[in-house]
């Protein structure tokens, strides 16, 4: 027994070593982004990289307060991203919650078909939807407005959010509903007083997931905005111009996009994993 263990050890050690080398290496892009964002422009491109330097927040000031050389302050793009993320998430939850209630009722004869159809829309390629949305929005002069972004985002996050809510509602023991009926609670009271509070964690998961997916999205923002509703991930592309890349500003802007998501993701890691599998993994 002991001998065997001795034989296994080196392989396990090697595997762990590989894993930790991978994890460390995968932090490099983040380290690069954060350190470059804190460097003066004259040392940002030095090779070998300067590991020890005095952090400067000038890049963040340039990006957030606005400096010359950019058509539009990046703070405005962050605000746009926030508005679009917020409205599309609210819209998504408002629409998904009643749908999830209906889909979790055994009395609803069409629920299986509808649930699977909704799941299958997750496979619908966004690029396909963009062409008609782009043309239609152009016709009604809605390109570069918030609704033309918020509605598609809500739509494309709906399958995930409905499924998360539905699987959570289905976990509510039927005794609770029966007891409520015995007590004379009507449908609306049941939903607002009992079902809703029990679904709050799932609503939170749905909201977090929908927010992250919207905040991080690039394609819709790229296709459907020009300037006044442009979102942050689209905006960072502009830091590479004709005269090369403004590394400091690019990195600082990137950090402002990534940081909020990162903080949330680390805190509620389990929820995100569960949510991204449509509630299938707990």
């Amino acid at each position, binding site marked *: 027994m002991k001998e*065997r263990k001795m*034989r296994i050890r080196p*392989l*396990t050690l090697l595997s*762990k070593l590989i*894993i930790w080398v991978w*994890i460390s290496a*995968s*932090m*490099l*892009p983040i380290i*690069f982004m954060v350190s*470059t964002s804190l460097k003066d422009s004259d040392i940002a491109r030095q090779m070998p*990289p300067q590991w020890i330097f005095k952090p400067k927040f000038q890049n963040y000031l340039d990006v957030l307060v606005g400096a010359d050389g950019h058509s539009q302050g990046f703070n405005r793009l962050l605000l746009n991203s926030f508005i679009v993320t917020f409205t599309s998430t609210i819209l998504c939850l*408002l*629409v998904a919650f*009643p*749908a999830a*209630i*209906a889909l979790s009722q*055994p*009395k*609803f*004869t*069409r629920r299986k078909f509808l649930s*699977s159809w*909704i799941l299958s829309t997750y*496979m619908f*390629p966004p690029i*396909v939807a963009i*062409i*008609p*949305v*782009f*043309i239609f929005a152009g016709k009604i002069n809605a390109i570069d407005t918030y609704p033309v972004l918020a*509605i598609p985002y809500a*739509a*494309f996050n709906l399958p995930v959010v409905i499924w998360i809510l539905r699987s959570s509602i289905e976990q509510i023991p039927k005794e609770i509903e029966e007891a409520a009926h015995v007590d004379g609670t009507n449908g609306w009271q049941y939903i607002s007083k009992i079902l809703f509070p029990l679904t709050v964690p799932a609503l939170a998961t749905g909201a977090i997931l929908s927010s992250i997916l919207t905040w*991080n999205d*690039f*394609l819709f923002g790229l*296709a459907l905005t020009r300037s006044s509703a442009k979102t942050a*991930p689209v905006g*960072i*592309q502009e830091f*590479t111009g004709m005269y090369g*890349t403004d590394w400091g500003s690019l990195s600082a802007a*990137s950090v402002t*996009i990534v940081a909020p*998501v*990162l903080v*949330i*993701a680390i805190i509620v*890691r389990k929820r*995100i994993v569960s949510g*991204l*599998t449509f509630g*299938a*993994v*707990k």
Partner: protein
Amino acid sequence: MRKATSKVNFASAINGQKLARSNSEPASLSRKKHSNRIFWFQMTPALIILLIMTIAPAIYLISKSFTNSSLLDSNSQFIGLKNYQSVLTDSSQLHAARVTGIFVVLVVLIEMVSGLFFAQFLYKKTRANSVAGALLIVPFAVAPAVAAMIFRELLNPNYGWVDYFMGLVGLPPQVDWLGNSFTSWIALIVLDVWQWTPYVTLILIAGMSALPEEPLEAAAVDGANTWQIFRHISVRLMAPFIAIALVLRTIQAFKTFDSFLILTGGGPGDSTSPVNLEIYRVALQSFRVGYASSMAILLLIVTSILTPVLLRILGWATKSEVDKLAFK
């Protein structure tokens, strides 16, 4: 579209225990009809939004795909199947289809294998593993567009860190990564694997920690080694989670757009230009709506064929094991 009628077991598997409940309740027919109306009412907003974003675009694109419609020219004529004919015979379109296919297969394969490897060693609840779990979610939280931008800077032949580190370990420095197609492919795949392996790993870790301990311990007592335990026990018990990760990653990989546009721009030439990027360019940069529509419809047909297959895998997985493990 065909996808609308695809039959799925994912739903029925999860509803399994609920069915019993509906049978035990003797509901009169009129009440059933009445409540169905309420359910449809509750479904309406979601259905409207989903129809606007899926079925309506599909119908619109089908009608446009038979025309030579363009946003730059108000004259639009019916040209029958010509668009489809030229898409299917255009070597660059077929090349794009190949790029998408190769990309999806390669990244999903690499991510699944690495994810399994990671999960095998990280699932035990130790302090080191929880640190690893927290670090793993980092790449995955980075917006794909930002990640692609960062990778482009890292791969810069003059100032990028990648070439610097390669020089340090004695590899040839100053590789122009995005300047030739082979290294561009490597860059794209590394970016995707960097970003999404953690996702697969975290799903599989969730699966591993739900596994019953007994069979693993029994096998260890019987003298099975790590590989044997992994191959004969873990993988089988994990099958549902592997299926979930596989299906979801495949779907997401098909949608990949940001990294192609930002990191390689489809280049050099069109060597890394996938279908998504081609459609984007034809529709929103050349404004050839008719032609782009036929490309989009062909993509939809392929997705519609794949959708039931993927959902069936998911249904099989959730039916067999997840009921016991995760849906309890």
